[in-house]
């Protein structure tokens, strides 16, 4: 019988509201804190109040005697538990042993010393106050450059030079580049420590069942499977008997791309006490003990011709590592080296990375992880070079861009950029903002004594992490598509979305490929007992890698469904098409996708060589990273009297490849820009010389608020990535990477008439005011 098949509207590319939002908005989502179990115990942790101190003795007797306290454990108790894992490696890397509770010495404020387990969290907190530690504070060092100086206190006594590693990378011939150079510009550029603050802090519930030798751990993580493997190792358990659940995760930004001491610690406590136990990180602990981001001091030198042709870039990167390596700590600055060339075609780079131990919480991946620092470096240097030779900042970029015919483009740092047309993106941005008009306006404004600035950044990034050989723990991703007998579809992704919105975008992809309504698809993730092994969410990889795995699994479903459809229609395989939710033969007869699903499970009609059921799993290994890029332009004005910066316009033109859901893309970009502006203008993780975290609460750590944000004008150019079948690149980090140099370039441009060449972040009003004072003095002297 001929059936009329209605053409279905494609969902990919549509601005669809997030499927995950109703539960978030109505407060019915389950975070770790919402996990309630019978006989649940509560843990609180005593932490070091000193940047560096010897523990002469610990007396837990008063705490242990407090009614309601069940147990107190210190460093001596946990020696059977494996230490905190660092998955990154570099030749000659010094790896201090990082026990889950301090032994005889603490290395940073917040370092875990003891855990009190009690019947409720209030008693646990009181118990912590009753532990008596005989501290012997020693001199701390928190500034990485001071830590490198001769005679500095040794963070780890066994390594008095405080140097964890030195990593060199050369590309091309730097000596020749400098020999050929007509102009060399040098600058020290700081990317200050930032403190990630997801709305949900970390938290862990561990539940050990002795009879089954089985452990269930709920933890707020971006990498459930990797965390399970690591925790099973630390606790000496069978991986298949550890179930790790990342329930609703309220933000991570890289800070939860990690496995922290408290996760194994709760496992240990639950095994000891044979009861479930919960620990929820306080905001203060989040500031002190969850990884920080950035922490660079970069010494940069750019060599060029007077016509603006860049010849090479030299970098000495001093990375503040903190006291230990967390999961990826030493690897992060090496990513900066890879992105040193930015979007430019110069052939010579030379980089030395010095990893420095300090008495501070470890740094590690934070939104952008190494790429914002690199982009800030190259984009500042390009602007400084332009200023030095009197060239327009847009023009110097055009002069040095890799051309659209150069792709795949092998960079001086050895990466192969997948696709791009950088000039077209900058064209679009300049046109949208009326760059020529703005420069005329600026002349006028300057004549009126106003400090108006225009800042451009043309950023690139590597994301879609990534080919497995280039990652510490595998860079592929997995997906399972399970079609139920009713034709409803369950997607299980190895990614672990925690705000990115893949429950929506992956459903869009599945619905399009299978021709089912959006609501017929659900996306599951984050539970190792439900989802096949996966790598997780970081490095803007969900769509580019996880989405690709999903796409291929959907193709397997389509193939199998077509064979069932052909059999049901009584025609040969290959004589049918599957479209719009129907399998149709050349005569126009069709069966629906739902009928096919039913038949696949009924098992009466089975195509030759096929089998019942309609489930497919794919693991997909990317051949390369994906390389989004864009042009961000900021128009700013500086208040001459106070130094306060006002953003007049913010324009972002991003090329992130094909777009699955523009609404999600906007959200990612806006959030990223907010975080980037936060770094450029306000945020600063500050330790004093004694190792105290001075910016350790929201009273002093300036997280940007909605009212501090500009209106963001946004547009796209679209250059699909050839690396994955979706043509998607990644957008999770673009905003953070593009925004900081645009902001600094804008303010430096505003202050250029006063002779200002560079400003380090955060560009607080006080700092700008001081700079204006100094430069007006210089001006008067000149």
């Amino acid at each position, binding site marked *: 019988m001929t059936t009329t098949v209605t053409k279905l509207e494609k969902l990919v590319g549509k601005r669809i509201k997030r499927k995950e939002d109703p539960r978030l908005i109505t407060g019915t989502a389950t975070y770790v804190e919402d996990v309630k179990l019978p006989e649940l115990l509560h843990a609180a942790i005593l932490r070091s109040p000193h940047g560096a101190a010897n523990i002469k003795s610990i007396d837990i007797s008063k705490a242990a005697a407090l009614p309601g306290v069940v147990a107190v454990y210190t460093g001596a108790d946990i020696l059977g538990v494996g230490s905190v894992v660092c998955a990154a490696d570099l030749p000659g890397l010094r790896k201090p042993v990082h026990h889950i509770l301090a032994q005889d010495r603490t290395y940073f404020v917040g370092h875990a010393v003891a855990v009190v387990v009690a019947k409720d969290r*209030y008693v646990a*907190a009181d118990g912590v*106050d009753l532990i008596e530690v005989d501290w012997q504070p020693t001199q701390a060092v928190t500034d990485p450059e001071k830590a490198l100086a001769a005679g500095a206190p040794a963070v780890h006594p066994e390594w008095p030079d405080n140097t964890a590693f030195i990593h060199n990378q050369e590309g091309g011939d730097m000596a020749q580049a400098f020999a050929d150079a007509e102009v060399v510009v040098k600058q020290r550029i700081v990317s200050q420590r930032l403190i990630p603050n997801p709305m949900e802090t970390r938290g862990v519930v561990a539940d050990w069942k002795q009879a089954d030798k089985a452990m269930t751990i709920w933890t707020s993580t971006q990498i459930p499977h990797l965390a399970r493997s690591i925790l099973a190792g630390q606790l000496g358990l069978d991986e298949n008997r550890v179930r790790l659940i990342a329930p609703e995760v309220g933000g991570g930004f890289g800070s939860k791309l990690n496995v922290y001491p408290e996760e194994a610690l709760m496992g240990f406590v639950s095994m000891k006490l044979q009861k479930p136990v919960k620990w929820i990180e*306080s905001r203060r602990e989040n500031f002190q003990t969850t990884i920080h981001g950035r922490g660079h001091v970069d010494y940069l030198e750019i060599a060029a011709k007077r016509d603006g042709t860049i010849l090479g870039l030299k970098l000495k990167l001093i990375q503040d590592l903190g006291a230990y390596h967390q999961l990826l700590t030493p690897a992060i600055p090496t990513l900066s080296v890879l992105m040193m060339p930015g979007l430019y075609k110069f052939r010579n780079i030379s980089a030395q990375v010095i990893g420095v131990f300090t008495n501070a919480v470890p740094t590690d991946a934070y939104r952008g992880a190494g790429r914002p620092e690199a982009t800030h470096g190259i984009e500042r240097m390009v602007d400084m070079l332009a200023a030095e030779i009197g060239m327009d900042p847009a023009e110097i970029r055009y002069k040095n861009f890799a051309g659209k015919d150069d792709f795949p483009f092998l960079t001086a740092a050895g990466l192969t950029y997948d696709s791009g047309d950088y000039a077209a993106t900058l064209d679009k941005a300049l046109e949208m903002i009326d760059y020529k008009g703005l420069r005329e306006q600026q002349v006028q404004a300057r004549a009126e004594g106003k400090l108006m600035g225009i800042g451009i950044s043309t950023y690139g990034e590597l994301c879609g992490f990534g080919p497995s050989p280039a990652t510490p723990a595998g860079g592929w991703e997995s997906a399972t598509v399970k079609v139920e007998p009713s034709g409803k579809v369950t997607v299980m992704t190895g990614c672990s979305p925690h705000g990115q919105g893949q429950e929506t975008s992956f459903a869009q992809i599945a619905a399009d490929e299978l021709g089912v309504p959006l609501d017929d698809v659900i996306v599951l993730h984050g539970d190792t007992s439900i989802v096949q092994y996966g790598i997780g969410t970081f490095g803007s990889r969900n769509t580019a890698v996880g989405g690709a795995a999903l796409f291929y699994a959907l193709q397997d479903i389509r193939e199998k469904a077509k064979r069932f459809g052909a059999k049901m229609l009584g025609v040969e395989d290959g004589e049918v098409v599957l479209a719009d939710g129907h399998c149709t033969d050349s005569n126009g007869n069709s069966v629906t996708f739902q009928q096919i699903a039913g038949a696949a499970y009924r098992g009466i009609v089975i195509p030759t060589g096929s089998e019942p059921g309609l489930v497919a799993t794919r693991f997909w290994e990317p051949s390369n990273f994906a390389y989004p890029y864009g042009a961000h332009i900021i128009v700013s004005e500086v208040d001459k009297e*106070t130094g306060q910066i006002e953003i007049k316009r913010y324009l972002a033109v991003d090329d992130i490849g094909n777009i699955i859901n523009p609404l999600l893309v906007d959200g990612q970009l806006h959030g990223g820009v907010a975080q980037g502006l936060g770094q450029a*203008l306000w945020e600063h993780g500050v330790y004093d010389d004694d190792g105290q975290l001075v910016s350790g609460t*929201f009273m*002093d750590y300036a997280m940007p608020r909605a009212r501090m944000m500009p209106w963001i004008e946004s547009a796209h150019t679209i250059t699909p990535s050839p690396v994955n079948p979706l043509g998607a690149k990644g957008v999770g980090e673009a905003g953070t990477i593009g925004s900081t140099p645009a902001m600094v370039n804008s303010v430096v441009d505003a202050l250029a008439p006063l002779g200002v060449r560079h400003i380090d972040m955060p560009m*607080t009003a006080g700092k700008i005011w001081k700079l204006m004072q100094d430069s007006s003095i210089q001006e008067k002297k000149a």
Partner: protein
Amino acid sequence: MIANSFEYSAPGSLKEALALLAEGAKPLAGGMSLIPMMKLRLANPEHLVDIGRLPELNYIREEGGAIHIGAGVTHFEVESSPLLLGKCPLLAETAAYIGDIQVRNRGTLGGSVAHADPSADYPAALHALDAKIVLTSSEGTRTLSTEEFFLDTFTTALDPGEIVSEVIVPVDAGLTGTSYQKFLQPASGFAIVGAAARVRQEGGKFTMVRVGVTGLSGNGYRARNVEDALVGQDVTDANIKAAAALVADGQDASSDLHATAEYRAHLAGAYTARALRAALSRSA
């Protein structure tokens, strides 16, 4: 971030509350300053008496040419009171600068005044308004000027067992212009400096000037030197600038992560001038 255990009483009348306070209990109003300190265990009171719910402390009324505001009135009520907006707009304008809407919905005028945070907003306005602070205990009531009340950082003239029960501000209708100008600390939203100005002019001359400043030093203050420099002088921007430049004289400017003493002093001058200009533009 969990407070020590404490006792909590919510008496139904002011009299009962004052009796408990006389025994050494500590008042709790909006909790917006006290609770965070307790969570950090910087304050560890054993007994809290909730005065934030007492109807006897919750009123805004005009009486004898002044406006009387109960200590339990929230920042939001101050900000949105038609009476204040019409007759003492400076206080309403100042309240609107406090924290965020959640804080303004809970925090109280009396709590803020009693807390005497050196970066709080109200002290600037109250100094400029010649406000009176009414203090009550089980022993009785006394009324102080702002300069008598605000003694130092987190230090006031309150005796143990005594509460701020009322704040009295003048009806400032007609020819008086006022303004509060605040430079926000980017993290906390408190004032790095805040300046409140209240002026009257006649025949091109300043006839009355009041300036209150917060944030600059350890205690909010009335900048009498700025006032004296202006009263009787011509209304010119040069005079405003010159007078405002005196605002930090004799003050021990604070220095912290967010502003050096030098920058704070500079801002105090700049914001005093801005407040004076805005106030002038509103004085008929």
